[in-house]
């Protein structure tokens, strides 16, 4: 009986059903597009944060004076202050050496490829180094004394496990291969296996694309090669701009309040010991400075903190807009359902006169609203997906990926809008007195 009544409502009250549907659709599509955009943007951003994997940046002490934009040094090569990559293995000797997951050096130049300027970054992909035994004697085990120095494999592969690579890694030591960022590959129209020519100050190098990397971050617009190639281009035998270090650290919030934010030279000996022996990003950076002369090491966490607070604010904004949109849409549902109830007063009165219970009348209207809500939610989700693509293209200049959470959330929100908007009209419906049936003809 119920399906019959509801079917007739949909057939006979098309106009108001359509209005309710539209109200739900508008709210749901906005909610769904914001969810998709927000989910994707925050995903991309936190991916970018993680893309450092690395949480400590090691630079030459005086590098602060250099002109650097977007991680690329614009200082003329002759004036550049560089670190010696041969010092890097010492990072594996600090107090918290076992917390160091990896590190990679970087040396970049701006090269030309087909008249496009690209960043050519020299680095280690997967390099095995031997760890110097500088640790105090009491920590060195007997085996180490007799055996040859232990080795450690590091490089981009170790600190950037999120790199999505199409093709292969560059073989360590192979100076003819490169990993090309997705953006560069797209611009130049090249793929894994292709060859391309780079030009730096008249020195041209033919490179083979080993793989194409996608990270969603700055890597997408760079070309990565083995470090010695860039050093050759610059005419130097050693030297790097910076190194990124990945270390497992304890959040600062875990440590005692009194030493939070204190500089090591201002601490009491007890505080200093506690601080030094806690794997904080600052204390590990400090220990790295201790082992690499002329280096300045600092957490790159400030960036992520700024970004996470930005994310928090964006989240609030998205929630507010979504909330306002959903409220407006629920009000629209309410107005339309109210009109529908008004138009059906006689029908309701008749149902009640022949014995319909309040809950049975309410069920009819809530079910109708629920069905419209569900279909409005479905349509709204699809419309929102389209809207999100539009926003992605027009505002962010990139397409958004499908968000799996947006679908169920949008459907649930749409049904909630439809039911919440029907609440007042349904109350009105069940209050209808059956006697009006006899009075109004």
């Amino acid at each position, binding site marked *: 009986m119920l399906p019959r009544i509801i079917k007739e409502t949909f057939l006979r009250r098309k106009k108001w059903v359509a209005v309710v549907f539209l109200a739900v659709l508008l709210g749901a599509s906005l909610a769904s597009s914001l969810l998709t955009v927000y989910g994707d943007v925050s995903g991309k951003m936190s991916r970018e944060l993680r893309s450092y994997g690395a949480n400590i940046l090691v630079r030459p002490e005086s590098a602060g004076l250099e002109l650097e934009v977007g991680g690329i040094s614009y200082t003329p090569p002759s004036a550049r202050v560089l670190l010696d990559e041969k010092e890097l293995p010492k990072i594996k000797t600090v107090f918290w050496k076992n917390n160091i997951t990896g590190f990679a050096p970087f040396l970049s130049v701006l090269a030309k490829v087909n008249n496009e300027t690209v960043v050519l970054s020299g680095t280690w992909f997967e390099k095995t180094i031997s760890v110097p035994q500088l640790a105090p004697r009491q920590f060195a085990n007997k085996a180490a004394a007799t055996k040859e120095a232990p080795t450690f494999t590091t490089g981009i592969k170790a600190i950037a496990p999120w790199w999505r690579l199409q093709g292969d890694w560059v073989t360590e030591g192979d100076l003819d291969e490169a990993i090309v960022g997705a953006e560069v590959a797209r611009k130049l129209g090249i793929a894994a296996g292709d060859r391309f020519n780079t030009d730096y100050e008249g020195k041209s190098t033919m490179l083979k694309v080993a793989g194409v990397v996608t990270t969603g971050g700055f890597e997408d617009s760079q070309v990565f090669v083995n470090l010695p190639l860039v050093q050759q281009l610059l005419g130097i035998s050693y030297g790097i701009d910076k190194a990124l270090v990945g270390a497992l650290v304890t959040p600062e919030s875990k440590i005692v309040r009194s030493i939070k934010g204190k500089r090591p030279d201002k601490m009491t000996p007890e505080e200093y010991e506690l601080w030094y022996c806690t794997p904080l990003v600052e204390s590990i950076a400090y220990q790295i400075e201790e082992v690499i002369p002329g280096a300045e090491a600092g957490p790159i966490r400030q960036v992520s903190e700024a970004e996470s607070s930005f994310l928090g604010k964006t989240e609030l904004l998205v929630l507010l807009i979504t909330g306002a949109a959903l409220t407006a849409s629920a009000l629209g549902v309410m107005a339309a359902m109210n009109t529908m109830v008004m138009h059906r007063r006689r029908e309701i009165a008749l149902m009640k006169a022949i014995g*319909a*219970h309040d809950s049975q009348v309410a069920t009819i209207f809530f079910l109708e609203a629920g069905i419209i809500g569900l279909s409005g939610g479905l349509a709204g989700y699809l419309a929102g997906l389209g809207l999100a693509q539009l926003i992605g293209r027009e505002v962010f200049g990139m397409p958004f990926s499908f968000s799996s959470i947006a679908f169920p959330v949008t459907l649930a929100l749409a049904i909630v809008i439809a039911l919440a908007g029907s609440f007042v009209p349904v109350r009105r419906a069940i209050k209808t007195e*059956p006697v009006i049936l*006899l009075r109004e003809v």
Partner: protein
Amino acid sequence: MSNGTLIDIKGVSKFYNGKVCALDKINLAIGKGEWVSIMGPSGSGKTTLLNIISCLDRPSAGLVIVGGADIGRLDHTELTRFRRETVGLIFQQFHLVPYLDALENVMLAQYFHSIADEEEARQALERVGLGDRLRHMPSQLSGGEQQRACIARALINQPKLVLADEPTGNLDQKNEELVMELFQAMHREGHTIVIVTHDPDVGKLADRRVYLEHGSIRSIE
């Protein structure tokens, strides 16, 4: 009134908008299984009285006791249940749901009462002579056929009390006879019937005729 009183109306008055006195201290007892006609000139309060008995409307003063229960004291939910369990309503304007066919209209009353049973609904319509009109929409039925569908709907849940407001008012002679035969059958089956009518021929069939005038009972015969 051999087998007890079903409806006991005591000092019932009804004022519309606080001044129009539609009923003035009515006292009336109706026995179980009795058939009572309410007659009188237009505006004398017949429909008002019937609406009060059927709980569609509440009296301004006085008591209405049906089957021992003071229906003035029932709350909203209990009134709905009372209407559903005890009363079958037949209207002058039929009031079938326009978008449901005859069979579905009968099944709707079953659905609100308990569960829809198509077979039972079909039999009810066959009893009122609409066995070949089950799938007709109300607009495809004649007035007499609509009234018979309405009667089938009123009787489907076996109500103790059947209330009808001018059930033959919109019918021709032949259909009036058909409908009155159904009322006589209901009466034989033991339903208590209260019927409002202008028609002396219809009134004659009842056990008693109550004449109203200006909201008061002028005579009972």
